[in-house]
């Protein structure tokens, strides 16, 4: 597996120890509960062993849950870091974020809303390409229907 600065897997060694311990203890508890219950014909004693078994499965489940939770959190945190790195990356050519007129936004004459050209509200009407930031000094609002 490829080694990176973030580590080869989303988990720390302590997470692996925890899930291994809880799974082993849980399975052993279930086995001991079965062993104890099958060796006794006393119903109340069997119920006690049954509770031991249920305790084992709860312990096992909790350990597995925290394992998955740790992995999910690690992946989520790394995704956030990666997105931050993408946003902050010093690309040689700037990424346009201003949505200029050539990006395809249009407006009707006299309207203060801008649309994508395929918007039903401007279909078949005379439109002009616009920069959505401002038009004659007045900021344009995005169309509520096409949501450009």
């Amino acid at each position, binding site marked *: *597996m*490829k080694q*990176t600065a*973030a580590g080869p*897997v*989303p988990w720390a060694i302590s997470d692996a120890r925890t*899930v291994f311990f809880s*799974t082993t203890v*849980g*399975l052993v508890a*279930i*086995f001991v*509960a*079965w062993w104890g*219950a*099958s060796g*006794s*014909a*006393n*119903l109340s004693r*069997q*119920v006690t*062993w*049954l509770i031991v*078994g*249920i305790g*084992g*499965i709860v312990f*096992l*489940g909790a350990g*597995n849950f925290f*394992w*998955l939770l740790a*992995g*999910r959190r*690690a*992946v989520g945190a*790394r*995704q956030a870091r*990666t997105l931050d*790195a*993408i946003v902050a*990356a*010093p*690309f*040689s*050519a700037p*990424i346009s974020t201003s949505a200029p007129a050539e990006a395809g936004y249009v407006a009707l004459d006299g309207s203060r809303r801008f649309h994508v050209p395929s918007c039903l509200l401007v279909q078949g009407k005379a439109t002009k390409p616009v920069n959505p930031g401002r038009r004659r000094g007045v900021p344009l609002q995005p169309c509520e229907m096409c949501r450009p």
Partner: protein
Amino acid sequence: MDMKQFLRSNWDRVAAVLLGVLGVIALVLGWVGVSGTGLAAEQNPYLISGGLAGIALIGVGCTIWLSADLQDEWRRLDGVEERLAQLVDRPRRADEPVLESIDAT
């Protein structure tokens, strides 16, 4: 991809499926054992060995499968970070898309 290569690259998912199948078999055997007797004292061991053990095996199988999914996501992020580092290190052509060019391998 032949079967051997598939099993090797997806060993964790194969193990998850096997555990799930074992868990279902344990549940069925437990049900057979419980339904074969009317005495509660004879039913309880089946309840523990078949029911609880079956649920535990299925649960561990699910954990292994979900862990494999998380590892896949982790490896994809490796690819994204590598590609991002390459894009940052070299000059970008004007007509070259940035985010679209990041392949998640």
